[in-house]
């Protein structure tokens, strides 16, 4: 009882099913990932993102339509969006825009 073998059997019972990560954590990890990506090279132009099948939120869509250079369309509008702030700080954040990753983390 309570020897090596007992502990090995207890540990061998495995993990059980996946728990859901808090939506707040998903939001923070996504924000950190985008910061990291944007720090190494410009993000993919929003027009190209859309053309490759990515769903844009209403703000990203507006930026994609701007008659400006690709530098603008490669920026990260989430940095100044309140959806990101809410998403990172609370569970069940009231974010409902289609195409917004923070909305998908909280409502998915």
């Amino acid at each position: 009882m309570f020897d090596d073998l007992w502990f090995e059997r207890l540990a061998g019972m495995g993990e059980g099913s996946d728990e859901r990560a808090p939506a707040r954590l998903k939001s923070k990890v996504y924000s950190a990932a985008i910061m990291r990506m944007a720090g190494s090279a410009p993000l993919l132009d929003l027009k190209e993102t859309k053309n490759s099948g990515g769903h844009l939120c209403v703000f990203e869509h507006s930026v994609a339509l701007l008659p400006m250079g690709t530098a603008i369309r490669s920026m990260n509008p989430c940095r100044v969006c309140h959806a990101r702030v809410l998403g990172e700080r609370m569970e069940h954040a009231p974010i409902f825009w289609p195409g917004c990753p923070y909305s998908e983390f909280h409502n998915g």
Partner: protein
Amino acid sequence: MDPNLPVMPGLAGEIPPPAEDSGEQELVAAILRNDRKAAARFVAAHIDAIYTYARQRLLPRADLVEDTVQEVFLAALGGLRHFQGQSSLRTWLIGIARHKIEDVYRRRLRAPESLDDTAQLDRDPPDAAPMVDEQLDTTRAREKARSVIARLPERYGLILLWRYWEQRSTRDIAQAVGVTEKSVERMLARARARFKQLWLEE
């Protein structure tokens, strides 16, 4: 051997791989093109598994779970160009998580041992016969183990997780922490004794 524990097949910590995903290489390629939506899909697809993995192995320090999960994803992004697709993304991420968690174990177990931990041993009851009569099903046993580990002194919980759930030998642990194997064995013996006391109390 405790008759209350059912015999279960499988290795400790084994997480079934996700179904074959032919889109993984496309997802990786999209992330490497700095596609933000691909990054969102990547996080959404794998974060629950990484969170579960980290949470179950950092029970005594649940406050470290979220930082560890974030570190795993950032390390993965940094190394994604080296991902060859020889395993699934999930398996690859779990491998990164395992290293990050072992870093936590190593750091925490290198800290000097608290006198409270050893003093408690003196109050442990002598060897007693199992007092649990009911048949524990797997789910209940897992929950009970988690609950007991969470109540142990931090270093005891971590060393049990490292030795039995991560299946690392005492020699490996000793080398990683920078102590003798005997020292690890002594700490494990104390950890098992405290675990036993709490298990029988529950």
